């Protein structure tokens, strides 16, 4: 049975009881109506007939009296009229005989009235005959007529009373019926109400129970119990709902199972990747402790897993600055801001020295809070080795080039000396081209040697405390001739209160000279060059500004690379000067960059470490370079 039918049935039962009550009440009403009607029919008419009969009789009596007093004609007319009235009412009374004894009374009245009428008739029509001589009319009336009249009247009244009594008792009976109807209706209605209530309760219980079960089951699913099943007891909509619900919970359980499987598979995948990659990975929690370390990283550190977990980086890594950076990353929640060139550490493994590139990154949970820090270590020993070999090769090649360069150079020198008079102008020009290019080649070989020496890590810094002013003055004296030749104004803006720097003064002078020489070469005749130095944060920034042609944007990032020269500009340099500058500044732990706009000149700036800082740059450099 469907839920709809059940509910209709529930209503139906209630309606049925309601109908029952109504029918009962209606029946009672009809019964009551019939009782009252009976009273009207049976008694009320008889009573009114008796009443009228009495009235008519009395009028007839009056008519007799009319006759006696001499108004015979009036009396007779009245009598006749009342006589028919009387007879008429008596006929009605006869039609409505309902009570035992009534019939007898009516017959008696009929008989007596017939006698009375006959006497009257005799008395009026045959006066002379009928009225005995001896008797006076007056006497006749009192002796004969009046007693008869009284008797008839009494009988009529008796009839009325009889009917009245019957009516009264009928009325009492009707009353009894009415009160019985009220009570019975109340009883029926009450019992119907109780039955309907009981039925409704039972029905609602039947409907609500499965819903409650579903509710409980949903709550369990919400709590993660996917095995829950709802009992299917009925075949109605709720039963269907329970079946669907069970299907749903089955599927949810399956999905859940699948998800866990996927997560596990994902985890396995990640673990496998971490275990197989050559890069070392170390995960730190927010307490600066190692929570995870892959095989490669353990190999790099020559450590067993149990020796790593829970340790701080200071216990595991020999390089303090790396540990500081990890702690810093955990503290600030952001990647440490370090130059890529500084992201290298050296670890000893057995007897061999290995070089590693490292990168620190932070990772966050879903809500954006810091979860930990990951340290990546990449073995770059081979790369470094290749780099070293490359530098060595370049160095060796440059060396080997020197001897032929000498021969060629001298040959050309001798040709220019001895044979130029035998050559025409164009041939002489060619000879000078060769001479110039030889000089350039020599410069190139020299620069290459310097650069490869620096790149091979053979740069040895001879650190000393120097004032920036001193460096600037040296440059000024060195380049005095070129500056004067081009009529260039050189402006010095070196702050007086600058602290001493701790640098290799020769190498920094070299850098500064190179930058100023470039500027001098680039500015037009009579141009301006500005050399300034100021304190920015913890470092001294030294800038060389010129009002030359400027450097195109696309070159600004590359200009410090080897052999990068701006197209279309007549440089005459080797394309290595700035690369060497960069290496020297880097060896000092500083940075060098350029800001420039076409047509507005360029500014080269580099940073120098301040002496007061107790950074052991010497140690750092030597550690990094060997």
């Amino acid at each position, binding site marked *: 049975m469907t839920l709809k039918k059940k509910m209709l049935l529930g209503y139906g039962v209630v309606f049925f009881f309601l109908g029952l009550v109504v029918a009962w009440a209606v029946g009672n009403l009809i019964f009551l109506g019939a009782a009252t009607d009976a009273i009207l029919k049976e008694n009320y008419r008889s009573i009114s007939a008796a009443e009228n009969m009495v009235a008519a009789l009395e009028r007839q009596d009056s008519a007799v009296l009319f006759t006696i007093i001499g108004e015979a004609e009036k009396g007779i007319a009245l009598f006749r009229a009342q006589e028919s009235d009387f007879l008429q009412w008596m006929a009605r009374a006869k039609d409505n005989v309902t009570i035992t004894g009534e019939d007898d009374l009516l017959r008696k009245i009929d008989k007596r009235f017939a006698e009375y009428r006959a006497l009257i008739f005799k008395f009026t029509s045959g006066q002379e005959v009928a009225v005995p001589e001896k008797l006076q009319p007056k006497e006749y009336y009192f002796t004969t007529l009046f007693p008869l009249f009284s008797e008839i009247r009494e009988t009529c009244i008796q009839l009325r009373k009889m009917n009245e009594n019957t009516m009264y008792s009928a009325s009492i009976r009707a009353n009894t019926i009415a009160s019985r109807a009220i009570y019975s209706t109340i009883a029926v209605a009450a019992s119907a109400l109780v039955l309907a209530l009981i039925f409704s309760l039972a029905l609602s219980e039947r409907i609500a129970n499965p819903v409650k079960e579903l509710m409980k089951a949903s709550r369990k699913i919400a709590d993660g119990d996917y095995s829950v099943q709802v009992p299917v007891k009925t075949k109605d909509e709720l039963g269907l709902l329970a079946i669907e619900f069970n299907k749903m919970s089955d599927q949810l359980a399956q999905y859940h199972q699948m998800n866990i499987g996927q997560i596990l598979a994902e985890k396995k995948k990640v673990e496998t990747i971490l275990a197989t990659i050559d890069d070392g990975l170390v995960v730190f929690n927010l307490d600066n402790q190692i929570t995870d370390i892959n095989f490669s990283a353990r190999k790099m550190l020559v450590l067993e897993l149990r020796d790593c977990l829970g340790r701080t980086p200071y216990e595991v890594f020999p390089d303090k600055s790396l540990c500081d950076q990890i702690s810093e990353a955990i503290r600030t929640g952001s990647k440490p801001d370090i130059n890529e060139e500084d992201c290298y550490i050296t670890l000893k493994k057995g007897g061999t020295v290995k070089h590693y590139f490292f990168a620190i990154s932070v990772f966050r949970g879903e809500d954006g809070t810091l979860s930990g820090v990951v340290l990546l270590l990449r073995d770059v020993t081979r790369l470094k080795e290749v780099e070293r070999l490359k530098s060595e090769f370049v160095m060796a090649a440059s060396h080997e080039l020197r001897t032929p*360069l000498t*021969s060629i150079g001298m040959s050309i*020198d001798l040709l220019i*000396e001895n044979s130029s008079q035998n050559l025409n102008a164009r041939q002489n020009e060619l000879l000078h081209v060769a001479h110039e290019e030889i000089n350039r080649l020599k410069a190139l070989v*020299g620069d290459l040697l310097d650069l490869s020496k620096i790149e091979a890590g053979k740069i040895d810094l001879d650190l000393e405390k120097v004032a920036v002013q001193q460096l600037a003055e040296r440059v000024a004296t060195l380049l005095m001739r070129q500056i004067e030749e081009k009529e260039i104004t050189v402006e010095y803006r070196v702050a007086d209160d600058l602290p001493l720097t701790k640098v290799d*003064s*020769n190498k920094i*002078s070299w850098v500064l000279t190179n930058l100023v020489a470039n500027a001098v070469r680039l500015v037009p005749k009579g141009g301006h060059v500005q050399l300034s130095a100021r304190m920015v944060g913890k470092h001294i920034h030294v800038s060389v500004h010129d009002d030359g042609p400027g450097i195109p944007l696309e070159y600004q990032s590359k200009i410090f690379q080897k052999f990068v020269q701006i197209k279309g500009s007549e440089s005459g340099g080797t394309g290595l000067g700035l690369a060497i500058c960069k290496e020297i500044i880097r060896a000092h732990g500083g940075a060098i960059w350029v800001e420039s706009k076409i047509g507005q000149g360029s500014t080269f700036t580099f940073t120098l470490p301040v002496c007061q800082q107790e950074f052991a740059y010497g140690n750092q450099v030597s550690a990094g370079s060997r």
Partner: protein
Amino acid sequence: METKSVLVVDDEKNIRMTLSLTLEPMGFRIQTAVNGEEALEKLASNGFWLILLDLKMPGMDGIEVLRQVKKNYSKIRVIIITAHGTIESAVEAMKLGAVDFIQKPFTANEIRELVNQVAVRETLDESKADDYQSLIEICKRHVTDGHIDLARETAKKAIAKDPAKPEAYNLLGAFIEIRGDWLEAQKFYRAALDIDPSFKPAQANLERTTSFHKFGKIALWPEAEKPEAGKNEEDKGE
């Protein structure tokens, strides 16, 4: 001036040839040797005033030749030709009395100038020498003659003459280094560089003495202009 003989010892045929052609116009008689053995043979049969000696040769190398020369022909002047910025046996060469070095690549004028310097040095009279450059040259002559102590004194004189020039400081540093006092030597190299940061010989010396490998030559004067100073080279004009 009597015709002086010069011996060019280099395994490179083209260097021998170009050097010969460069020096001939100066009025020297030039002979060449392809290696140490041939050089010693020629030395035995001929009298030479000057030897241009390549340090790196197959067979008997330059240092051995230098040693023989200083032992047997102490009057012969020697100019060492190198292709390397640093030479492991430079201190050795210095001790042996080689004070004149020239580094490849050099130009014709540079070698001529150097030879000329050596020639002029011979004629200088120490008692009359009064200018800085002469003192430097006399100082170098003392080295050539194996008188390191005299050379040191002369260098000091030169410094007193003109404290604002780097060469004398550098030479003094080199002499002290030969004695084995690196730290003291470095002070003088630095002093030279303080005067002229681009003074290459002092740079090379300082680099060598401060570097991990305590090798290398002792540079005594600017050799062929280095590329960074290339602008100077152009300016100098031929």
